[in-house]
């Protein structure tokens, strides 16, 4: 099976061939590196930009104005904070120009912790991004979704922020991409650039097929009626692990919702699940003041208060200036499996 990052790369290739992608660019995105996480190796429209995040986002906007289809990369979302007002402008062009200026562009960026990235390679960005009206924000948690959401991000005529949980980029999916060769080594030989001299290397792309995952459509990773867990990105597989453990321990199964889209989010699925279980835990790795899930919690209170049998929960990262390098910092700042298990057990066990 393809890894998450191979899936992104193949989606971009599909986008170049079938969806009109004209430019894939950013710092170290073009040859020889093809992205610090290899997401853009071998792509025919990939090129290297100056080390200038505002220039990257601005140029993508300009390309979109002129009818191109750009996918730009901010190397780590931590470097994207100085682009906030340009992101705001990109999100309001269609609105402020009374519908005359759609802004069809994708900004992709690795987000979150899990690679011992210290202060500036561990930030989460989704809570900041969720305030950018006019944007759509997606964050897949597995290779197949990474492929399908990238195709939709490219096809959507609005600006889409594509957040990649960097700790999952090397993780293999458990479902094949349509058109992906069955043999992992064969795929690697076809599309991974060799170590060393790459000047004469060219990828051999598989015959990929379309697979669009609609923006705003969550998926149910586990089904049950004991409680609802809502997560996405890096912590989604950890939530699945926790739900599986509790089912093994107690026989009680939980709904685990992979939100996949931060905005617009799948309120229909969240609502239906909470109405069924009466118990909900939101989990993500962003920090805890004005965390995006606080909005979901507020909607839960407003819309579903009388469906709740116990208080709703939110597990999130601590409100500290950064994630320290030593593992003691990271493991005690961002929720880990242990914390998810504790929170989920408490949620399931609390008397109604």
């Amino acid at each position, binding site marked *: 099976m393809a890894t998450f990052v191979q899936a992104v790369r193949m989606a971009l290739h599909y986008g170049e061939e079938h969806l009109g992608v004209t430019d894939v660019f950013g710092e170290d995105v073009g040859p020889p590196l093809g992205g610090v996480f290899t997401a853009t190796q071998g792509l025919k429209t990939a090129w290297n930009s100056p080390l200038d995040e505002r220039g990257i986002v601005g140029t993508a906007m300009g390309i979109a104005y002129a*009818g191109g289809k750009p996918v730009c990369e901010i190397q780590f979302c931590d470097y994207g904070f100085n682009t906030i007002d340009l992101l705001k402008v990109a999100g309001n062009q269609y609105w402020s120009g*009374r*519908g005359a200026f759609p802004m*069809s562009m994708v900004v992709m960026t690795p987000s979150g912790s899990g690679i011992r990235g210290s202060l500036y390679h561990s930030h989460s960005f989704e809570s900041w991004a969720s305030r950018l009206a006019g944007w759509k924000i997606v964050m897949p948690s597995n290779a197949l979704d990474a492929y399908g959401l990238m195709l939709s991000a490219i096809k959507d*005529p609005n600006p889409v922020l594509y957040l990649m949980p960097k700790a999952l980029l090397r993780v293999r999916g458990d479902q094949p991409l349509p058109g992906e060769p069955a043999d992992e080594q064969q795929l690697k030989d076809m599309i991974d650039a060799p170590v060393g001299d790459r000047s004469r290397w060219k990828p051999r792309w598989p015959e990929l097929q379309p697979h669009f995952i609609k923006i705003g459509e969550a998926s149910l990773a586990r089904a049950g009626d004991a409680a609802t867990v809502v997560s996405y990105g890096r912590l989604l597989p950890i939530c699945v692990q926790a739900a599986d453990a509790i089912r093994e321990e107690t026989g009680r199964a939980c709904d685990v919702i992979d939100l996949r889209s931060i905005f617009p989010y799948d*309120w229909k699925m969240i609502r239906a699940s909470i109405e069924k279980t009466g118990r909900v835990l939101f989990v993500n790795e962003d920090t805890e003041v004005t965390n995006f899930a606080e909005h979901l919690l507020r909607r839960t209170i407003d819309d579903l208060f009388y469906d709740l049998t116990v208080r709703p929960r939110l597990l999130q990262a601590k409100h500290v200036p950064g994630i320290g390098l030593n593992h003691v910092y990271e493991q005690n700042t961002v929720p880990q499996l242990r914390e998810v298990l504790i929170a989920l057990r408490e949620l399931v066990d609390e008397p109604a």
Partner: protein
Amino acid sequence: MPESSTETTLLPSLETGDESLPGELCQHIHRVMVRSRRMEERMIKMAKSGEGYFWIGGPGEEAFNTCLGLQIKKGRGPNFDFLHLHYRNEATLVAMGMPVLDGIRQMAMRATDPHSMGRNFPGHFSVADWNIVPVSSVIENQFAIAPGTAMVQKRVSSDAITIVVGGDAGSAEGDFASCLVWSSRPANPLPVLIIVMNNGWGISTCSAGQHGERHVSDRAGPFGIPAEVVDGNDPVASWHAIRRGMHHCRTKRTPYFVEAGVSRLNGHSSSSGAARVTNEPDCIELLERRLRRAGIMDAEEIERVHEEARAEADAALEQSLLEPLPVVADIERYTYHPSPVDAVYPGDYTGLPR
């Protein structure tokens, strides 16, 4: 009209040094400048009378901005010029053919405002059919965006260029440096005409205390971008500086830099009172003196232009006040373009997901 700069005319020409403009073109430039000025004076009155809220604009920049507007290759898409303007480019729009009524509609915040449906400040134009992308109040971010349109233009077989305009104060922003870097990358230099309108002010702060460089355009040199400084109050000099810049970008497909010294005749905006200053030269008065002296227009003809422009602005106000205001249902309109791959908003935004 731009082609007429080289035509033989019955009227005498205006000359600056060894450069000249035909008399007919000067008459046309004058008329555009006056129409733009009268439109803005009407806007300032609207800000004071409550018929509008906030005014910001370009009295003092009309000479240069008119010459810019008249030389644009106007149209939609990468085969035509793209404009990334600042909020003092009214005369450019009037020169390109924007009805004064449309400027007033934006000031009056009407639903009929073609630029923003009553959403944005005056002077924050957007015209898709002319590649004028929405003007932002955040100074200088247009400089980070401009290389993108130029990049696409360079790929099509056309002489279309990207024009980006900002002020001297805004050149302190990093986006200005971004534009210099991205426009002149050896890997892909771009046809960007970079224009800085130097009025010597950033709101209330004099540039002399903030900028050590002799000219803003001196910053183009290290990037290999040809640059010139021009008297932006002089339409003859401005016309030819713009022409040179455009010709360079259209033919060499690389960037060019023009810094225009201009006046700021009504302060920064209505927030500083928009009162007329008297210690800076007025490009319209300067031009009229030259037109009279050259025998291109007499005082009566000039006054007639002013009268017509005043009447046009007054009529535009009357008309705009009869037109509808935005309604509550408009608030969410145009948040999202319809999308076939969005499960929640296949059409426009409809409030929070339900």
